[in-house]
């Protein structure tokens, strides 16, 4: 007993609660939050006026507001993607589902016309159109879920099929057109309106997030999703309806995608079946993974995914306003620096990597 080094614990207190510092270091959202804070600090120093926010009429203006506004699409996608990734899957079809949802809603709200070479819709009201678009997306999610949970195709393949086929479906809906959504004021408000001084998209994110958080964390659904993702077999032995839970995650993700599609089409005032949502699935996955939900499934954090989405958007905005040797960075080059950030944040989330990083300091401390 007397030879025991003073820093080692006796068995009695070796089973003690985790310390505050360990608790904070163990928080999943810590690292993306830190990255976001660093990025904002960088902007505070190097981007003049980044934090300037002014009120003009019913809305706020400023770079920060732009980040929020542009970040809404990835944020909404990321909320749905979080649940899918929690089940141990992935949804590559969200970009195509965005296109389908926005195109379908557009075709429903656009008034009918006999004029040749002009898109002719059904002239419905906005709300029923949105409900139909979201339901159609829900069916896509159901199909994804069916392929994955029942046919047992790997998620990446199943949703890849839907991703490719979905583009075709979107173009079948619009025909040769890129339907203009200016006809519906409510549709246009999705991406351009304001609510309580903030972009309406932010309110949409808040509502989707709130609904999702409440329905997963105030019920047993969150635990069930994490169980299914961590160990589907154990979930079954514990009496969970694994297939139903898996399918509902994909349905929810697809509905989120339709909402993101509406915002996207609204921002560009047209539902573009070919370009809407291209590559968005990857940014949504980025937001989720950087936010602290592992691709292997299990534990998920919705807050982390929102932070991940903001990090992605802030990075984009920052890089676009940064000049290197007097030159702007071309938007086409953005993926490279973003990739570097993904790697850094992902590594920092790994306990092993952090231990390796801190090792030189740790051993010195012990020696001293």
């Amino acid at each position, binding site marked *: 007993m007397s*030879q*025991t*080094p003073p820093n*080692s*614990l006796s*068995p009695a207190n*070796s*089973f*003690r*609660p*985790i310390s505050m510092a*360990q608790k904070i270091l163990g928080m999943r959202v810590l690292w993306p939050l830190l990255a976001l804070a660093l990025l904002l600090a960088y902007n505070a120093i190097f981007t003049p006026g980044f934090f300037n926010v002014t009120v003009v009429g019913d809305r706020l203006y400023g770079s920060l507001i732009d980040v929020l506004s542009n970040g809404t699409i990835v944020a909404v996608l990321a909320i749905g993607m979080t649940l899918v990734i929690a089940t141990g899957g992935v949804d590559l079809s969200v970009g195509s589902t965005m296109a389908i949802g926005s195109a379908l809603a557009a075709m429903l709200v656009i008034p009918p016309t006999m004029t040749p070479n002009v898109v002719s819709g059904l002239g419905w009201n906005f709300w029923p159109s949105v409900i139909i678009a979201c339901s159609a997306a829900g069916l896509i999610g159901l199909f994804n879920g069916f392929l994955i949970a029942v046919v047992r195709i790997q998620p990446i393949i199943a949703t890849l099929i839907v991703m490719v086929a979905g583009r075709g479906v979107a173009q079948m809906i619009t025909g040769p057109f890129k339907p203009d959504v200016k006809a519906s004021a409510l549709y246009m408000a999705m991406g351009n309106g304001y609510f309580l001084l903030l972009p309406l998209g932010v309110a949409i994110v808040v509502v989707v997030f709130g609904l999702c958080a409440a329905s997963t964390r*105030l*019920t*047993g*659904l969150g*635990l*069930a999703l*994490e*169980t299914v993702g*961590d*160990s589907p*077999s*154990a*979930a*079954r*032995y*514990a*009496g*969970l*309806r694994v297939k139903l839970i898996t399918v509902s995650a994909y349905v929810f993700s697809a509905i989120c995608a339709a909402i993101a599609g509406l915002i996207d089409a609204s921002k560009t005032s047209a539902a573009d079946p070919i370009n809407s949502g291209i590559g968005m699935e990857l940014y949504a996955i980025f937001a989720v993974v950087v936010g602290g939900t592992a691709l292997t499934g*299990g*534990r998920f954090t919705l807050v982390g995914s929102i932070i991940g989405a903001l990090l992605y958007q802030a990075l984009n905005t920052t890089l676009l306003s940064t000049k290197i040797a007097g030159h702007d960075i071309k938007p086409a080059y953005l993926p490279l620096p973003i990739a570097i950030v993904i790697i850094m944040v992902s590594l920092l989330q790994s306990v092993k990597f952090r231990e390796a990083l801190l090792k030189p300091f740790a051993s010195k401390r012990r020696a001293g």
Partner: protein
Amino acid sequence: MPTDSTILQAAGIHKRFTGVNALDDVSFTLRRGEIHALMGENGAGKSTLIKVITGVYPRDGGTVTLDGEPIYPRSPKDADDAGIRTVYQEVNLVPYLTVAENLLIGRFPKVGGFICWGKVRAMGREAMQRLGINIDVSRPTNSYSIAIQQMVAIARAVMTDDRRVATKVLVLDEPTSSLDAAEVDQLFLVMQRLREQGVGIIFVTHFMDQVYRISDRITVLRNGRFVGEYLKRDLPRLELVSRMMGRNIEEVAAMNQYRPATSASSAKTGGGIEVKGLAKAGKVGATSFPIRPGEAVGLAGLLGSGRTETARLIYGIDRADAGTLTLDGEEISPTSPRKMILAGFGMTPEDRKIDGIVPNLSVRENMVLGLQSRHGLLKKISTRQQYAIANEYIKKLNIKTPHADQPIKNLSGGNQQKVLLARWLVTKPRLLILDEPTRGIDVGAKAEIEKLVGELCQQGMSVLFISSELEEVVRTCARVVVLRDRKQVGVLEGNDVEIAGIMKTIAMHEPNAAEAGTR
């Protein structure tokens, strides 16, 4: 204590994992040509010590010397290069390759850049012969029994050539857990042969009989600490158990004397569960037996006799294609685990790691999972309730965990099993199916689980108990259903429940099987 014959000396070893001291000032000394058993309950630190010695984990303190030279293996390869070889519980061979290929993989003898297959076979044969085993090394590895595969793994571990130093230390981690008695004998011959060749063998096992049969010396660990090193002859069994458990001898003796109440006294008349000819083609033939309230029913039989298959049918994991189940006279067909859980069933599966624990979730979440799924997912068990449940059962079942939020994967096997038991106890089930609940866990936890089963039965719960250890079945169960070759061959009750009776029942049908074989 180091002497001339010492090969490996680990002194003052410390290893910490987040929040837990896995090894605290642990010492271990291995001599040339000895079989040294490393004993301890789950969580004692056996595997951690092995992993420190073999370079899987870096140590946080202490020294390891091999042949007097200090070593610091940073990877299993480092340890291997120094002459420390390990054979793990799960055989790490490529099943479809031949024995010779498995033995020489990565170091095939080449002539002019081409593999010389004749030499591969010759070297493979020689390596097996060194262990006293003559087999055709050109046959696929998976055509041999697990025991032979284990020997192949050992042969591969101890093989040497000009680039590989001779084996000084051989670590055998639970090598006998999937072997039958004859195969264990075969393995022991190999171990003795290696001992004669001067190899120091570290033997990790839960089987006490085997320790006393083969080992020369025993080191006991408890709670990450060194308890002592003993010559086998100086350490009677009961004393070993008490050292491992940290309890005094009288207590251990009392535990061993625990006997289940007989069916006559504990089983309430009438009611209960009746299994009526549940069967599934290709899995298990019809089984029929009652499970009365307050009764523990055992399923006994050899490996592959259909015990787990029967349990899976009763729990609804597999769907029976014949037969049914009645609950207090009412028929219920087990079509899904969910349905059976709602009817008051619970099961801790045989493969704890795959089917039981949800590894990354906390002890608390793992515990409330059964209750939550029984309540339905919409009615969340409040966080406060969850902590109350977790803390209650951590205390009640004596689960060793720093706190309720520890991921269950960080617990030792026995403690994981207790959490899984708690998962169902929380739901107050009427039937608890325990499939090999004591496999791979230590003596102390075993005794605790057996005792718990007895207490549950006294409270009126029913238990379906599956175990390969007949002693355990006999100690625990009031009624034993005997299975053989995926068929029910008998039911023993009351005083007939004893090992000889069960074995006789299994053997009774031997002639029939032989007949079937000759046809």
